[in-house]
């Protein structure tokens, strides 16, 4: 059992939990994830490790209450225990060597995963421009944390209620066209966002790393359900990823495969909420 040491609601749908997991905390690196099974009936769900404290022996996971399994996870409060937490899984992020300036782009709850990347690079002495996109001001998460982990933070909102009005891709393009020389762009967020960030960087030949979120089951390299096509080859995101060169990823296929259980998921949510979401 893995105790929830701290639980914070970051906005209506986003929850941060700090979990007591000393073995995982000792090894975790940015880019890696854990598989969580909240109770006996639960699914094995992957969550990227958002932060870790090696001394305290804890890890932080930030999730969006989006489906049946995250609803059930959200029922667990501070002091309660999660049944299973396995990790750290996946390969740690490998950064471009001797990078001087990197743009880290996060979308929505993806910022929770982009944030440790920015932090790690910033601590390595890299100039980090963090571009964080949200629908509107009221759902912004981790603003202070992100600000402390980068050289410059650009908040973007779709409706202009905070910071730059527009998508992260617009901001990124503006920065690049304004002369920013990026050695690498790291994009983490919804699949369409990652796809469009890659479309922006490709003409400039800027290496772009994306963190993929395919459907997973065991997460340890046994079932093959997280297979994605990268550079025309089948890769297993759980052992060979989840980070890949974004210019090589077949995002359309990933979106198709991620929709496999849409109807069943909706049905499970219905049963949990009595049809109310």
């Amino acid at each position, binding site marked *: 059992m893995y105790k929830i040491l701290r639980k914070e609601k970051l906005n209506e749908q986003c929850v941060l939990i700090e979990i007591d997991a000393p073995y995982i905390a000792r090894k975790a690196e940015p880019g890696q994830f854990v598989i969580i099974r909240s109770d006996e*009936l639960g699914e094995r769900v992957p969550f990227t490790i958002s932060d870790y404290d090696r001394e305290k022996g804890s890890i932080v996971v930030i999730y969006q209450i989006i489906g049946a399994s995250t609803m059930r996870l959200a029922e667990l409060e501070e002091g309660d225990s999660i049944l299973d937490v*396995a990790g750290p899984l996946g390969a740690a992020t490998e950064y471009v060597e001797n990078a001087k300036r990197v743009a880290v782009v996060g979308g929505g709850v993806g910022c929770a995963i982009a944030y440790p990347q920015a932090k790690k690079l910033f601590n390595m002495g890299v100039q980090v421009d963090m571009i964080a996109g949200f629908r509107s001001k009221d759902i912004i998460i981790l603003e202070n944390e992100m600000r402390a982990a980068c050289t410059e933070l650009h908040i973007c909102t779709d409706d202009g209620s905070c910071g730059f009005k527009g998508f992260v891709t617009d901001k990124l393009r503006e920065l690049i066209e304004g002369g920013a020389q990026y050695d690498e762009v790291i994009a983490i967020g919804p699949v369409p966002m990652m796809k469009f960030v890659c479309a922006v960087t490709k003409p400039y030949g800027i290496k772009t790393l994306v963190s993929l979120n395919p459907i997973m*089951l065991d997460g340890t390299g046994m079932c093959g*359900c997280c297979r994605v096509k990268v550079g025309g080859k089948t890769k297993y995101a759980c*052992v060979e990823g989840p980070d890949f060169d974004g210019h090589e990823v077949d995002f359309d296929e990933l979106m198709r495969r991620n929709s496999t259980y849409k109807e*069943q998921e909706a049905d499970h949510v219905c049963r949990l909420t009595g049809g109310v979401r």
Partner: protein
Amino acid sequence: MPNMDPCKTPIPEQEPAVRARNFDEVTLGYTREQAVQEAQRCLNCKNRPCMTGCPVGVRIPEFIAQAAQGNFEEAYKIITSTNSLPAVCGRVCPQERQCESKCVRGIKGEPVGIGRLERFCADYMRGKQTTSAVPKPNGHKVAVIGAGPAGLTAAGDLAKLGYDVTVYEAFHTAGGVLMYGIPEFRLPKAIVAEEIEGLKKLGVKIMTNMVIGRVLSVDELFGMDYEAVFIGSGAGLPRFMNIDGEDLVGVYSANEFLTRINLMKAYDDDHYTPIIRPKRVAVVGGGNVAMDSARSAMRLGAEKVYIIYRRSMDELPARKEEVHHAGEEGIEFMLLTNPTRILGDDKGRVTGIECVKMELGEPDASGRRSPVEVEGSEFTVDVDTVIMAIGTSPNPLLTMTTPGLEKSSRGTLIVDENECTTKEGVFAGGDAVTGSATVILAMGAGKKAAAAIDSYIKSKQ
């Protein structure tokens, strides 16, 4: 006088039409009387040919002699002195290729139902306290990676010798393929759980959610005072055919399909793991995993389930009983057939599978006649789900993270005749060494490795 009936005492089974729609166990097992009657068919041969066919060396005629007199507890003790998982082996061993293939009674008639008797003895003792003593600790620690058949057998044998054994399991449940792979209707999970409880009573510790290679390295295990490490990490990543359409929605690896069903209980609506409820299914492959996938698909409510296999019935590698049961349950065998591509609609969902007819040519390296495509014989089968059951390749995690641990060109771990790897103090067995094979071969390897680990540790003193 032995029972000279040339046929095995029939074993009660669920009716095919009924069982094809539920996940309850197919074979119901002998009654006490039936078990005695079958045990009496054993001639108790002096040279014990059956034993030469058993990878874990069960003293078969001895346990059967006890069973023939109704002494099932005694019979059970004889079995468990060399086999830690008798209820499992009685159900899933390919006896027709092992012990029973050597049985003298098989020359004129059917061999003694050794598997059925082993199963009966184990089931008879379920829930009954046995009097076996907890072994005296010898003060040495061994780590086992993977709680599947190989790891559990090694752990059990080492614990019996007094070792302090910890098994590190990647999943949330111990059992490996016995839990995620082999379906409930062939091997009830409660039985596996009980056999594992038996090992815990011997002092074996099991730590779940521990993916060795990530959370701890093999070298770090040695730093934790383990004097030897046994790797039984299993088969690894599923193989695909590399044909068009394998990334469509509705294409599963057998590992994924079976794990959703067996480990995650996706067939039960109370569990949250989803699964496609298929109507028309093609399973590609001819092994036990293919049979399990096909029969599971039927139980999820499919109308048509095909096994597509490129050789003929004679080469089908699955256990005979499973092929027979699958046929009874309405699975259709498309033999001498090989898929060429998987077809999909504009939403990326499977709509069919294109196949080509095959014919058998010259024998290949394995001695089996290799299949050759019949030109121009392509045809299409309408299906909404395709399950690839064509084997696995080893997970590279441990070889990647363990300096000195070498692998073959196939990616499997290299071991000597004592299951010793290229790294000192590290032993390995099961699918991680052989590639996809059977539960009992993995158990045999675990057993051999346990003996080798014992002499290795003793030799260091």
